[in-house]
């Protein structure tokens, strides 16, 4: 099976220095769970120093499409993947250090005419020309999707952690450098400024309510205003609790 992992030029979340994005290293590990695939990394950008570290974490080969800083990587990636035709294309759910919109895998899948499955935490082979992709859902639930190959799959941070870095493997790995495609980024100019953390808006009382309503809401959350049973028999208490939980819909059985 031919698997290509898309690698972006990441920035370290703490130091801000160039490094491979963590979730893409997890994608490399997921590719290894598919037996022994023919694994290639693909990066389009002005420099490959940052992504080269991925060679030490399970990636044998990296294909680097050299483009200028202001180029849109999409066109070059589409061209390379259209000629290479991998069975499975893995990507991170979101870059970390670029535009970070998570849109590129979708645009790529659209351009290549492939299906895309998001947020994988596990990939298992499912017979000829298909894989099971286990998706992460909120609250720890999972969804197992069987998808026909070729396909694009994005990886969720809840996937198994990346393989440990091995210096010898990093030395052994090869980087193939090709000229990329020049393609200007589209879209309106966006005003940029240093990031400022914004307070989370948590609706204590409805916005626009009067002071009296806000006070009521603030004090009400402290007092549930619910039912109080004083000294019931244990059996009765148990019955009440089960009935209440069932009413809330948290008791599944």
């Amino acid at each position, binding site marked *: 099976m031919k698997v290509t992992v898309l690698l972006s030029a990441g920035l370290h979340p703490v130091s801000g220095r160039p490094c491979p994005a963590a979730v893409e290293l997890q994608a490399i590990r997921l590719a290894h769970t598919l037996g022994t695939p023919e694994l290639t990394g693909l990066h389009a950008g002005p420099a490959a120093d940052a992504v080269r570290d991925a060679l030490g974490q399970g990636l044998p080969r990296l294909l680097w499409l050299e483009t200028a800083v202001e180029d849109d990587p999409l066109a070059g990636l589409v061209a390379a993947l259209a000629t290479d035709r991998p069975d499975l294309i893995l990507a991170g759910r979101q870059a970390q250090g670029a535009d970070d*919109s998570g849109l590129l895998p979708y645009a790529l899948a659209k351009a290549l005419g492939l299906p895309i499955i998001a947020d994988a935490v596990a990939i298992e082979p499912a017979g000829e020309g298909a894989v099971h992709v286990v998706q992460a859902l909120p*609250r720890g639930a999972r969804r197992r999707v069987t998808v*026909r190959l070729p396909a694009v799959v994005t990886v969720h941070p809840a996937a198994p952690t990346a393989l440990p870095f091995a210096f010898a493997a990093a030395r052994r790995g090869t980087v193939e450098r090709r000229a990329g495609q020049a393609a200007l980024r589209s879209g309106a100019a966006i005003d940029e400024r240093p990031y400022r953390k914004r307070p989370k808006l948590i*609706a204590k009382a409805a916005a626009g309510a009067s002071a009296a309503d806000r006070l009521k809401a603030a004090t009400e959350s402290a007092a549930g205003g619910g039912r109080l049973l004083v000294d019931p028999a244990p059996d009765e208490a148990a019955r*009440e609790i089960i009935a209440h939980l069932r009413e809330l819909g948290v008791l599944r059985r």
Partner: protein
Amino acid sequence: MSTMRLRRDPRTERAAHRIDGTARPRFDLAAAAETTGGRLRRNPRAEVERMLVAGTSRRRLDRSQRSVSTPLHIAAPAETAAAPRLIVIEEPAFLVAVVPDAPGGRLTPHDRQMIGAARLLAEKGGAVLALLAEPCEEIGPAGADRVLLVEASTGYDPEGRSASIAMAVDGLGVRHALFPESVDGGDIARRVAADLGEALFAGAESIAANAVTRASRGRRVEQRRAPPRLISLAADAALPYAGAPREARALQDDPMPTVPTRRAILAAEIIPADPARVPLGEAGFVVSAGNGVTDFDGFRAVAAALGATPGASRVVCDAGLMPRAAQVGASGTVLEATCYFALGIAGAPQHLQGIARCEHVVAVNTDLHAAMIERAGLAIVADAQKVMPALLAALECETETTA
């Protein structure tokens, strides 16, 4: 020489307001104040009357000046409570679409925040259009003027769903389309963006009619621009709509047609979370033990039988009776659960902080005056040590009767 100034004659003015038919001279000076076109005067009594908050036994004044000039009538609040006025927009100038997740036809808090944000964008004569996968009753009170059903073909088919949403967004000339930046909502948003070949303003962290912002470059840079067409909204970035209910009129009689897709997805099944192994912060239902619990094997059995994730208070974790990862509270995990069941927990402020976002709380405690009893929706003043075996027995008995 100048012409002579017109002079007031207070005596005749006063005489004009004389009330006839009384032996002693009496004057209606209140009417006089209104009719003479003189200086405008404040009426402090009427102002105070307008600030009075209705429906409280103690006299209270609302000085925020939000309540406008309707003087207090005792009957008025009862009328509005009986029939909240429905806001109807007949001819919207433009549409702002929202695509709620609405699992099982129920809006999530994130969906409500998104509709609140859409109301901000629709402020000047626009209407909010909800593109729903299945009918949802709460959508009108949550703030939607119009609804349109976009049904995907059966099963998990994000491709078909996003194709019909893209068709609706394009075909109806929607000015803005909002998505929640949740697992499924974010996926649909990006699919729609790819279908329309447009940029998505992903994970907006603040939103107003004139500007939206989001984090980029590893949260080092904030991007800011006028709201584009496709926006996905991060959680807790906007307040839910709190005004009078909206109409939620169906935009068309029949739902959007489904778009045929390649059906590359052969099968999909949901694997429910294993409550014993879900991280506490993600769990939906948490049972927690405090200092009032001594039988921890029994407690773990109760958690397993209820299908809940076990948690504990700090005292219990400090004593090594439960792992540190199970600690709920300010210095432990802040829960996102829908339901919290506290056994023998007093409810210290540090502990209550951890459950501030839990919607429902059930508490068992021997102390009637414990803060946890006050916080709970169902509070039981009893010995947790006796309630736990009773719970186990009741649950076992139920499984036997159903089996």
